[in-house]
């Protein structure tokens, strides 16, 4: 029986919402500001001549618009995100409350340092947690996101190599790496050389040995790796890299598997960025903001970028310029204006204080336990390319699934789940990478396993209807990405008056 179309075009709580430009009108406003007249005397002849073209809306209209938009979004507060390598854990609301204390939110970055000692002390305390958890002596706090932190780490390595007076132009990266790794290395001026994986999904030591040489600056590794597996040979890998005079960069995206249990510094890592929005629960916010502080080994510490945080007798001093840095410091430059993502620092520290070292360790263990529980529950119906146990994420592929990974994932949307990470890592065909995190209850995991089992069996039995063309129940069906790329429409434009016939 087909659904009866409604008169309004809306369907109960599911409203179609136009653009603000289509709702707004001239003469309306959502704020009450005084009308102040200005003279042009001090504007250098650059007083705006035309209109900007912004729509006007009252406050009730604005609120309704954004509330309706929000209802078209999936969110971790609403359901499980099995996204491998994203660590979509619960975002505690205490973090939000703390970040909004005026003593954090309303402090100007260039207020005299004597008037911001509490902020500097907080950054210093967070730095202490990060260095203690990772077993590294130093940390660069300013990078604004994971990829930014990665760039910071690679630039630190580049500076260290230059300081030795050496010419090392190659960076080695496993073929399973996330795209940011080679992008970052190339961006920093290095050529990228790929290291092969073994059949059991780990770094091929022979491939690594053969590629190492006096022109290699660094080896970039994710551990646990992008297949969700711990690199057993990591200590030997670090030794090989160091013996060749290179540095060992670790992508910290998967730190949630080992935080509070393994210290990357103990493994021989020289630099590792930490995604505060993954491991330490700062909210993803629909795509940002993140934060990516980078822990550094003794050998790399002197090259950390500005600003530097120095603990002195009479307080904490922020060093913002090379001319003010201590003699031993050789910062390679600056990653961004001001001091870093203070708002995310407060949230991350709130998370750390709430969990404590015991809670962080327990979280890592639960994350690994939950991923293995999912692996155990699904591996007889979905093909798992690597022998378990896995760490905090479980990898499957589309072998004998009967439908493509894409169609399977889109059908999950109709079942009420956000799809898992798809087609990554590239070393496996039709990859499906599932990371539940520690904040799912057993009931939630059981339900997820039950639904995915049933879906996999449907696919294998050849009953493809629910997969092909999915999703059908979401606010939108599949969108035409080809058309969007061929003829990009990246903004709303006012309609031009139609020409006379």
């Amino acid at each position: 029986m087909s659904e009866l179309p409604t008169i309004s075009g809306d369907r109960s709580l599911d409203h179609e919402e136009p653009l603000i430009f289509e709702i707004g009108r001239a003469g309306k406003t959502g704020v009450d500001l005084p009308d102040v007249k200005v003279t042009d005397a001090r504007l250098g002849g650059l007083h705006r001549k035309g209109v900007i073209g912004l729509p006007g809306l009252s406050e009730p209209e604005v609120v309704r618009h954004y509330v309706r938009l929000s209802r078209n979004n999936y969110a971790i507060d609403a359901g499980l995100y099995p996204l491998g390598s994203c660590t979509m854990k619960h975002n505690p609301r205490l973090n939000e409350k703390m970040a909004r204390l005026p003593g954090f939110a309303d402090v100007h970055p260039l207020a005299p340092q004597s008037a911001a000692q509490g902020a500097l002390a907080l950054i210093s305390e967070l730095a202490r947690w990060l260095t203690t958890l990772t077993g590294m002596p130093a940390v660069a706090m300013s990078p604004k996101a994971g990829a930014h932190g990665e760039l910071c780490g690679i630039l630190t390595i580049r500076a260290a190599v230059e300081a030795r007076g050496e010419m090392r132009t190659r960076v080695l990266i496993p073929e399973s790496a996330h795209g940011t790794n080679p992008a970052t290395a190339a961006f920093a001026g290095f050529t990228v050389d790929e290291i092969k994986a073994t059949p059991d999904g780990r770094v091929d030591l022979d491939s690594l040995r053969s590629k190492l040489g006096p022109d290699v600056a660094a080896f970039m590794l994710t551990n646990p790796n992008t297949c969700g597996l711990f690199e057993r040979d990591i200590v030997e890998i670090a030794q090989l890299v160091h013996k060749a005079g290179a540095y060992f960069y670790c992508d910290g995206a998967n730190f949630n598997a080992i935080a509070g249990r393994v210290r990357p510094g103990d493994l021989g890592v020289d630099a590792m960025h930490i995604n505060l929005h993954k491991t330490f629960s700062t909210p993803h916010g629909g795509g940002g903001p993140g934060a990516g502080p980078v822990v550094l080994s003794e050998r790399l510490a002197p090259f950390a970028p500005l600003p530097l945080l120095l603990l002195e007798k009479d307080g904490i001093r922020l060093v913002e310029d090379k001319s003010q840095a201590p003699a031993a410091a050789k910062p390679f430059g600056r990653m961004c204006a001001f001091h870093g993502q203070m708002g995310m620092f407060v949230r991350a520290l709130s998370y750390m204080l709430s969990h404590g070292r015991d809670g962080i360790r327990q979280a890592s263990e639960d994350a690994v336990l939950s991923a293995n529980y999912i692996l155990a529950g699904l591996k007889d119906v979905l093909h798992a390319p690597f022998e378990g146990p896995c760490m905090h994420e479980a990898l499957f592929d589309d072998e004998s699934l009967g439908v493509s990974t894409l169609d399977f994932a889109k059908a999950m949307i109709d079942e009420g789940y956000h799809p898992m990470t798809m087609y990554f890592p590239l070393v496996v065909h039709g990859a499906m990478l599932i990371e539940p995190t520690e904040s799912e209850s057993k009931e939630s995991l059981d339900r997820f396993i039950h639904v995915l089992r049933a879906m996999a069996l449907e696919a294998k039995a050849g009953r493809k209807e629910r997969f092909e063309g999915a999703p059908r129940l979401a606010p939108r069906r599949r969108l035409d990405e080809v058309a969007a790329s061929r003829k990009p429409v990246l903004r709303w434009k006012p309609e031009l008056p139609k020409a006379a016939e």
Partner: protein
Amino acid sequence: MSETRYTEQHEWVRVDGDEGTIGITRYATEQLGDVVYVELPAVGKAIAKGAEGAVVESVKAASEVYAPVGGTVTAVNEALGGDPAKVNASPEEDGWFFKIKLTNAAEFAQLMTEAKYLDYVKGL
């Protein structure tokens, strides 16, 4: 009399005298999916055999197109700008990418004939 030869990276070049027309094969477009954009070289640019000549983009991937033979670019297919779908519809005719003036005719002889290329694709 023109002849078309092929590379293992799924590029084709049709040579007539010392002028070559270059594009990608049907097999390549099948692997790529819907083409959304083609980045073409500048007219007058010198490209060595095996160097990057163009970049062809689908929604999910961007692939380099290497010059099967070396030479100087004499023309590019402007029509692809407004209608990249031509590459999928007619990869070996209307969907050509660029033309070059060959510097070394011997490079052409080293490439696979159509029969050899079809065999090669069968084996993939």
